């Protein structure tokens, strides 16, 4: 056992920069301490270990942020990130929600990752990522602090995403000047990508327009064990066992991984043929063990006639987009920027 572990550790050290390796290994080991075999989760220790940052109404590198309680009943918080305009370096408390000024301002509703159980909107890694998205896309980013598993199972995360979507859509100060509508994109990584898909689904019959979905290493799965899962199990930070644990924690008790939340184009899934679904940008890391499911998702969208662009980053592992120290990061950020600006 120890020997094959050595092999595993050596392999993943060769494909990521050292600081990325340290960061993701740290998460991996910490998370091992938090998942209990009986399916419960050490939430106190998780919150203690998670590195968080407060919102900052003073712009840092051209971006400021503030937190808003968008649903008191569920204590649903979101962190809003906005770019500063050239003329006003310092905003006071009244101007946080001042109307967006440009003809078109994309509003990206972001769902952080963490396999439905970890992280928060105010986790340092996601605060940093959202700030980058603001600068990159000249967008407002709304990062949703959705309820997590195992304390809150399906469909809580989707409900919260839906609440956030409705809230964003109804903010007058987020409307683009050109057409007095809010230009909404849904984005997320890992479980956040999964949430983005399902919230877009819910939006379909509602009359709320979602202009695009950005899914970074989205978390999907299924009952079957795919080739990539078998080949890459334990090799690049992630194991099948932990993936199984998180699905058991999120899905309703007794359900298996062919549940539509996990496997949207599986036996219990819904066909999107003929449906007006937003265009999608799906990023798949070539060293992610669940890539077969992610690729199947892309195929599912294509077969239903939906517009989808796949970015397959061969040598990328999970979490590559957390630190800007690799080529995959820059490629993906460029594509995201193009994806969002193509509506201007």
């Amino acid at each position: 056992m120890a020997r094959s572990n050595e092999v595993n550790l050596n392999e993943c050290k060769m494909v990521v920069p050292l600081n990325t390796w340290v960061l993701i290994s740290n998460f991996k080991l910490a998370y091992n301490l938090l998942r209990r075999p009986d399916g419960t989760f050490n939430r106190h220790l998780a919150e203690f270990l998670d590195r968080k940052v407060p919102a900052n109404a003073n712009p840092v590198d051209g971006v400021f942020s503030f937190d808003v309680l968008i649903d008191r009943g569920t204590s649903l918080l979101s962190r809003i990130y906005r770019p500063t305009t050239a003329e006003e370096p310092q905003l006071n408390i009244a101007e946080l929600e001042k109307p967006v000024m440009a003809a078109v301002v994309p509003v990206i509703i972001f769902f952080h990752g963490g396999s439905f159980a970890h992280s928060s909107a105010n986790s340092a890694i996601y605060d940093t990522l959202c700030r980058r998205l603001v600068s990159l896309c000249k967008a407002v980013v709304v990062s949703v602090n959705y309820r997590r598993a195992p304390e809150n199972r399906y469909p809580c995360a989707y409900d919260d995403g839906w609440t956030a979507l409705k809230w964003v859509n109804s903010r007058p100060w987020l409307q683009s000047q050109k057409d007095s509508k809010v230009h909404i994109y849904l984005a997320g990584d890992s479980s956040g990508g999964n949430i983005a898909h399902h919230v877009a689904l819910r939006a379909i019959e509602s009359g709320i327009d979602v202009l695009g979905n950005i899914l970074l290493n989205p978390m999907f799965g299924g009952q079957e064990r795919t080739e990539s899962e078998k080949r890459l199990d334990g090799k690049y930070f992630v194991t099948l066992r932990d993936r199984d644990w998180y699905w058991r924690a999120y899905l309703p008790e007794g359900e298996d991984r062919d549940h539509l939340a996990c496997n949207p184009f599986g036996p219990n899934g819904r066909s999107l043929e003929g449906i007006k679904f937003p265009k999608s940008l799906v990023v798949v890391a070539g060293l992610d063990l669940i890539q077969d499911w992610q690729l199947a998702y892309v195929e599912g969208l294509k077969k239903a006639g939906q517009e989808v662009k796949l970015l397959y980053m061969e040598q990328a592992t999970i979490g590559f987009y957390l630190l800007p120290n690799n080529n995959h990061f820059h490629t993906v950020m460029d594509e995201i920027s193009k994806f969002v600006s193509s509506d201007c």
Partner: protein
Amino acid sequence: MVLYDSATLGGSCSGSSSSSSSSKPPPLQQRQQTQQDIDGLLAGAGYRVRSSELRKVAQRLERLETAMVNSPADLSQLASDTIHYNPSDLASWVDSLLSEFTQPPTCPSEFIMDPETNQTVVSDAWTTAEPHMPQVHQNISYQQQSLNNQLTVDNQLTVVTAMEEDSGIRLVHMLMTCAECVQRGDFSLATSCLEDMQGLLTRVNTVCGIGKVAGHFIDALSRRIFQGIGGGSINGGSAYENEILYHHFYEACPYLKFAHFTANQAILEAFDGHDCVHVVDFNLMHGLQWPALIQALALRPGGPPLLRLTGIGPPSPDGRDSLREIGLRLAELARSVNVRFAFRGVAASRLEDVKPWMLQVNPKESVAVNSIMQLHRLLGSDLNRNSPIETVLSWIRSLNPKIMTVVEQEANHNQPGFLDRFTEALHYYSTMFDSLEACTVQPNKALAEIYIQREIANVVSCEGSARVERHEPLSKWRTRLSGAGFRPLHLGSNAYKQASMLLTLFSAEGYSVEENDGCLTLGWHSRPLIAASAWQAVSDGPADFPA
């Protein structure tokens, strides 16, 4: 097992930023990189690792993973019993976990081999068990102490957030304008602003949200403009009144309870193994903090120490010796749980009037200095002499305390510029009032609001020696205390867990505890409002490390 992670960061005094929202620190990465070759990207993720140590940390992580895989039993113990400290310091966190694996397996008997000295020691079995005990007692005693159970979360509360009210926004605009005028010295314009705002107030909901807190700020500005900056009636409240208001603030929201139980946990741990202990409380009030500690000490393994408590408080004008009365009540409690106890009251109207000889510290006792929202009062400087804070910190250090527990408002209300201070206070107190909405029990809530209102009035309408509410954020206290010869004693995951659990017992949803570089903060949603930390004097003499 080491009870404290007493690793310091050498020259680095800034933690992961818990700064208030309107202060402007330089970007975290930049500042720390210049100081210490810290990896900037990991800093952005909340971890401090020296670039030169990355490889070493990586190796340790590998070893840790191998150890975790090879001994799942240890892994589950690591997951449940181990106390974690200061996760931002990744290197020491990994090392502390690794050290859990290299310990010899626990033997059924009480005697195990100390790996360092190769001698049999008795203590380990107890030290691993101990952290659980105070938690239980803290729970019990707080249930006994709590006079009201004020936790009804009103889910029907349809408080509209500030920004959704147009008049609310206008009100804030006008408050800022008025404050600006005051800063500029344009009092006539400020006065007309005030009149406009009074008018607007009548059209805004002043029962909750921005209307309520705006009203208090308008009052405070009024005072400043019309009554001057000498404090007057704000600071003139009697000690008795202040105690009542403080008590209601204690009941209405969890900030003071958090302060007390976090400090008590740290003090309990610091006193472990000591038989003569002396707590110096910088602001006794009704002594609400101490029953829990007395009970926890009563039940500690090996029996309670001899406990002395010195309570500092203002003199009572009416001839009553209120300090002594509190002392007597605490003594009764101590007697009922068989803790040998002695109390002494020190009456002083200002903390800076206290001289160390008044505390009569015995060189053989272990001292804990407990300061709940008192140190900031010493930050006003008199040009003629040393700033009182320096004097006081210096004599605290001379007492060589085992621990100094410090709780302070997590806010930047001591900035010299009035407008900056005003803006910061508006943010801070809006959040605090928001959190108070979760409390629906009267009269606690109304009186707690008056308590907070007095703070607001002091921050906004006073200057010079009258302005005592000179709150500074954790980052500034770290610098100040490190500079004064103290080093941090980190609060760990056990204290964190206890705080979180007690919060769910006592408070509505929305309060959150966070770990910040070895300190704990309590806030409303994601905004920290109060910060608790523990310190020990750095000794000048030969190495004097804690157990």
